[in-house]
């Protein structure tokens, strides 16, 4: 496990980078750094932020959830359809978050019961959930819109003139996640499982339950992201979450969450989200197209992990030992074939 000190240094470095970044764009365009503009621009990337919070837990346990974007699409579409069929929009939103929990539960059960890799399991459900979203919303237009104004204010409304409602929700949820991870026994179990699954198992921890809950939370947050995104764009689409997994995972890893599991913080995920989000907003301002931005996102992802790897001698040693134990299991099984 990377030490607490190392985590702090990483977070500080990212916070410093964030300030530099805001300063850089501020020099190019003074309007960009006005508090009003900065606050308003968070509405663009906060859906990613919600999912990065739960993804942090998933990655700390040594897993990964590639299906977040598809879950988001499916939750959004179901919310839209329920509303179209006369369900109250707030009830529909709540039901779609519950649906997210169910989808996450399916992911978790697939992984812990069958022992297939999280990568492959969530790759398969990425296909399945995404396809269901497209099927449900139907061919042709493929979007549902016309939601009531009270719901739309969730996406673009503000409190005290400047502070976006979304940002307040995000702040509350981020604090809850931070508390969960740092101060509850469940949070410590998440780290334990990620650091040494075998030891966690032998000390009587219900490893499968710990892991499943991380995927359920991931599904919930995908639902939450869908609710906010639907409100922000005033519509839901069958492909509204496509490719979002990349931004979510990048936010976590840039924030210092160890890709091999075992360490990472909610503060890191928060900083990673904002570093990436502000960068995207700044590039938008400079008229860099979203596709060209993906080059930057990809490069940042690799740079973040490369730096983690180069800086953390410990994590490399850990990685080798983990490979040893997994290959030992593999050898015993293949030897008996």
């Amino acid at each position, binding site marked *: 496990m990377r030490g607490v000190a190392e985590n702090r240094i990483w977070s500080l470095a990212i916070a410093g980078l964030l300030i530099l970044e805001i300063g850089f764009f501020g020099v190019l365009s003074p309007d960009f750094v006005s508090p009003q503009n900065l606050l308003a621009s968070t509405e663009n990337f906060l859906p990613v932020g919600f999912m990065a919070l739960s993804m942090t837990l998933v990655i700390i346990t040594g897993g*990964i959830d590639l299906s977040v974007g598809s879950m988001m699409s499916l939750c959004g579409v179901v919310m839209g359809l329920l509303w179209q069929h006369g369900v109250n929009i707030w009830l529909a939103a709540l039901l779609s978050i519950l649906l997210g929990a169910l989808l996450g539960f399916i992911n978790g059960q*697939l992984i812990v019961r*069958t*022992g*297939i*890799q999280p*990568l*492959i*399991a969530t*790759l*398969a*459900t*990425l*296909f*399945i959930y*995404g*396809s*269901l979203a*497209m*099927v449900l919303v139907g*061919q042709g237009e493929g979007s549902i819109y016309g939601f009531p104004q009270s719901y739309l204010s969730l996406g673009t409304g503000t409190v005290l003139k400047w502070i976006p409602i979304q940002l307040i929700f995000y702040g509350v949820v981020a604090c809850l996640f931070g508390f969960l991870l740092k101060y509850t026994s469940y949070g410590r179990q998440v780290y334990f499982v990620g650091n040494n699954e075998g030891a966690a198992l032998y000390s009587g921890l219900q490893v499968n339950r710990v892991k499943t809950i991380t995927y359920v939370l991931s599904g919930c947050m995908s639902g939450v992201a869908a609710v906010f995104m639907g409100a922000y764009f005033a519509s839901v689409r*069958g492909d509204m979450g496509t490719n979002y997994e*990349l931004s979510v*995972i*990048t936010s976590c*890893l840039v924030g210092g969450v160890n*890709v*091999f599991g075992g360490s990472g913080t909610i503060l890191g995920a928060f900083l990673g989200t904002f570093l990436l989000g502000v960068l995207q907003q700044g590039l938008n301002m400079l008229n860099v*197209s979203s*596709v*060209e*931005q*993906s*080059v*930057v*996102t*990809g*490069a940042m*992802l*690799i740079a973040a*992990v*490369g730096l983690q*790897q*180069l800086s953390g001698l410990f994590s*490399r040693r850990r*990685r080798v030992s983990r*490979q*040893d134990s*997994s*290959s*030992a299991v*593999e*050898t015993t*099984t*293949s030897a*008996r*074939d």
Partner: protein
Amino acid sequence: MSGLLKRREFSLIVFILIFLLVMLFVTPRFLQPGNLINILLNISTVGILAMGQCLVIITKGIDLSVGANMGLVTLVVGTLLLNGVPTWLSIAIGVATGLVCGGLNAVLISLLRLPPIIVTLGTLSLFSGLMYMVTNGQWIQNLPSSFLAIGNSKVLGIPGPVIVLVIVFIVLSVFMEQTVLGRYIYAVGNNPNAARLAGLSTNRTVIVPYVLMGLLAGIAGVLYLSYNGFSTPTTGADLNLESIAAAVIGGTNVFGGRGTALGAVLGAVLLGVITEALVFFHLPAVWNDAVEGLIILIAVIADSGLRRSQRVAG
């Protein structure tokens, strides 16, 4: 014999045959030679990429960027051709582009020891961004007929891309089964420690599959462009995951060490047959992904169930 029955390749062939038999009763048209060759033609690019993916997964890796790599190749070749560069030179530069992209993955993964999933997720967005930059988001079309002739050629009634698929399959099978380097790849995937103790450089061996994957992406890209005659900035986007699906369905073990080129091709054939069946049943194409996802799950769960039962039996 029992060994043969347990092989994934065998059960896949049986499954494909049963599926075709069922389709024979539903619509006899499905089994016409023209349609069967068409299915093979449709899967020729996926099949080629799936074999590369198989090699990568054998070393416990994964390549999420291969579709974007292939797409980039199509756009580079197309742009060169439209600017009057000779066909052979455009093809050579295209294949080289694929090799360079694969080489980038290889360097990041083997020298910097970064996790393959993260590296290729990063290069996926890198390559997709480059695809837009190459053509400014424009389509590539109106290619010279001398180039189109390659993909649309036929030898004894068999389309060119299918012949290339078969050649790549034979070469890779020989490479994986018969050459020292091929066996090294299995050794490193099966048990990195044993391989290291036996004097193999695990890091250097891991370079090979990613570079080969780049080469295959180059070949597939040229084939795709010359057969279809056009390319868009999103070409290949679905192949990233589909090639993994085909390899995994074909019995490539995601925990490394196991998988064959034959399995990967058969996995691609199964996906192709099912896609074609959906067309015959007039189901919208959006169902395709759901069916694909389900088949991946069934394949990997069957795999882990098999391993579990073997453990108990042993």
